[in-house]
């Protein structure tokens, strides 16, 4: 059976982050990236509601699961294989606010797909973010393949792949975990369990309480963490990364979290979620929670928080302005890059 959060060391008391090996600066950096992810997301909804962009898909509520785990990795050395909510992961791995807005508005300069994909379909070879597709579940196998290549070349890079609990139902999720287990690949399977696949609640998706329990059936550890506790997520990911680098194989981390917004700008979550349920989870939101921790740990002062807010807001303003005035692709870009020969 899977390890549970409660069993993870919660040592360190008021200074859990230091006990986990995170400096104050590192903790603040995690905080700021979570804030930035959220601020960008909120701006996207605004732009969408103004009719200036057709579609938003949100990271709101899941920032701890994303940034907490990505922070345990080494950008450019390690790889991430995200899914369409993983703004926090992408930002940690080097995407900027401008990049976010460029892809959101589908500009030619968008480093992910040059405006070809829907928002939040990340990808950058330079940043070691694999290109993201929409069909869910497929990416878990790509992560296994990336890790296999690392292993073949004797590198100790780790690959983290992200997916919703809904996507765990796909056959590919099974095949990926099995393959990674057989070859003891350095893969972190990180499930952001937000309780729903669009409208379908967890109990219609599986007959078990903890997805992490699946790991035992492949022969590697499964861990359940409070996905809204960024340090708990970091701790679990950090342990898994160490295991992976030692050549001991994959870990499945189930981060229990919640999506605060509707599934996307095309969704109406009132059709399937009670307002009370959403309200309950709003109380447990990861960003205020981490802010409170940092204040109690005397790492975050009110002044510093304001400074961060200002910086984040400026970044988002700048990114929005930049992207809004950036050019669209031209019609003849349509035919490019079907095959590799044509250079970018």
């Amino acid at each position: 059976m899977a390890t549970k959060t409660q069993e993870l060391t919660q040592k360190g008391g008021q200074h859990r982050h230091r006990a986990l090996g995170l400096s104050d600066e590192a903790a603040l950096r995690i905080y700021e990236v979570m804030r930035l992810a959220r601020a960008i997301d909120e701006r996207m909804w605004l732009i969408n509601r103004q009719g200036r962009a057709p579609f938003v898909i949100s990271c709101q509520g899941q920032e701890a699961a994303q940034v907490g785990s990505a922070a345990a990795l080494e950008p450019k050395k390690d790889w991430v294989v995200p899914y369409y909510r993983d703004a926090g992961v992408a930002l940690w791995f080097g995407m900027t606010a401008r990049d976010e807005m460029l892809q959101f508005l589908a500009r030619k300069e968008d480093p992910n797909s040059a405006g070809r994909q829907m928002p939040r379909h990340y990808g950058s070879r330079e940043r070691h973010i694999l290109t993201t597709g929409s069909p869910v579940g497929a990416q878990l196998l790509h992560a296994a393949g990336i890790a296999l290549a690392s292993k073949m070349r004797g590198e100790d890079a780790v690959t983290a792949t992200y997916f919703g609990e809904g996507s765990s139902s796909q056959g590919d999720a099974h095949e990926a975990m099995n393959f990674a287990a057989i070859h003891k690949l350095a893969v972190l399977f990180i499930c952001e369990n937000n309780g729903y696949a669009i409208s379908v609640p967890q109990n219609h998706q599986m007959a078990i309480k903890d997805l992490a329990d699946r790991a035992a059936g492949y022969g590697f550890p499964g861990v359940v963490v409070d996905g809204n506790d960024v340090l708990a997520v970091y701790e679990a990911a950090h342990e898994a990364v160490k295991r992976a680098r030692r050549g001991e194989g994959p870990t499945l981390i189930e981060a229990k979290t919640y999506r605060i917004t509707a599934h996307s700008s095309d969704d109406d979550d009132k059709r399937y979620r009670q307002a009370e349920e959403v309200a309950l989870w709003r109380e447990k939101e990861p960003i205020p929670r981490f802010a409170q921790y940092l204040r109690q740990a005397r790492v975050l002062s009110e002044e510093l928080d304001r400074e961060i807010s200002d910086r984040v807001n400026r970044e988002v303003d700048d990114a929005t302005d930049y992207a809004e005035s950036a050019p669209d692709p031209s019609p003849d870009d349509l035919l490019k890059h079907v095959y590799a020969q044509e250079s970018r």
Partner: protein
Amino acid sequence: MAVKTLIEAIRDAMDEEMERDPSVFVIGEDVGVRGGVFLATDGLANKYGEDRVIDSPLAESSIVGVAIGAAANGMRPIAEIQFADFIGPAYNQIVQEAARFCYRSAGDFCLPMVIRAPWGGGVHGAIYHSQSIEATFGHVPGLKVVVPGTPADAKGLLKAAIRDPDPVLFLEHKRTYRLIRGEVPDGDHLVAIGTAEVRREGKDLSLIAYGLMLHYCLEAAEKLAGEGVSVEVLDLRSIKPMDDAAILKTTRKTGKVLIVHEDNQFGGIAGEVMAIIMESAFDALDAPVMRLCGPDVPAMPYNHVLEAAFMPSVDRIAEKARELAAY
């Protein structure tokens, strides 16, 4: 008769068939309380219960695989694939299982089942919410593939598909869901699978299309009429079986044919229509048959400039039709 949108007609068809036949049920992602992401099944879970409108796990192979088993055991499942672009994980179940059951059992296990899939572009859906799949599945013997273009056909063809003893892939163009309205006969309206329909009579040249492109072709025909060119428009509406007779009839009538589809050109359905004409009406041709199709790029990009560059438009259809008329 009432005026309905295409998606209302689809909902009505399911509702009436579920009412009529207790063996009909719906299975797919978000089809339950959510009523489907396009609301095609809105209200059905309420009316028939969650046991007959089943929210499946997010796994297309299981949606189709379970439907196959249920159909083999006396039920008439309607499986919904949320977007045609996500039918890939179910490809093996559809092609190697559903489409082969009847043949491999020499008629013992034929499968009365429908797979509904919203398809097509023009909705800012990008690479993975805009694709066309009719050529891929049209190539598969044992399957039937239909594409209604009007609300009346949507109802009539879906009811026919549900009652059909074989697996039918039922393709619903997303852009037409709410854009296209029309009179829909009440009650037991059925449209025979395998029949095309002339939507506009003409004598100078023929346009052949289906789905959204049918409507673009009708607009283009209207334009050309203003220029003194009389254009016939044939709504293919059944990709498999294909109505060869209707294709040959319009070919023999006008001697000039242009086929239009969104799907990638290479290996698309237009090629097959051209082959059918080549084989059986070569002598009737006054010009080479032409086609106007989606370009051979993986799929439609998100950016609106690129999306527009991908889609055949009324203007481009009209332009190509003029070229053909002048041949």
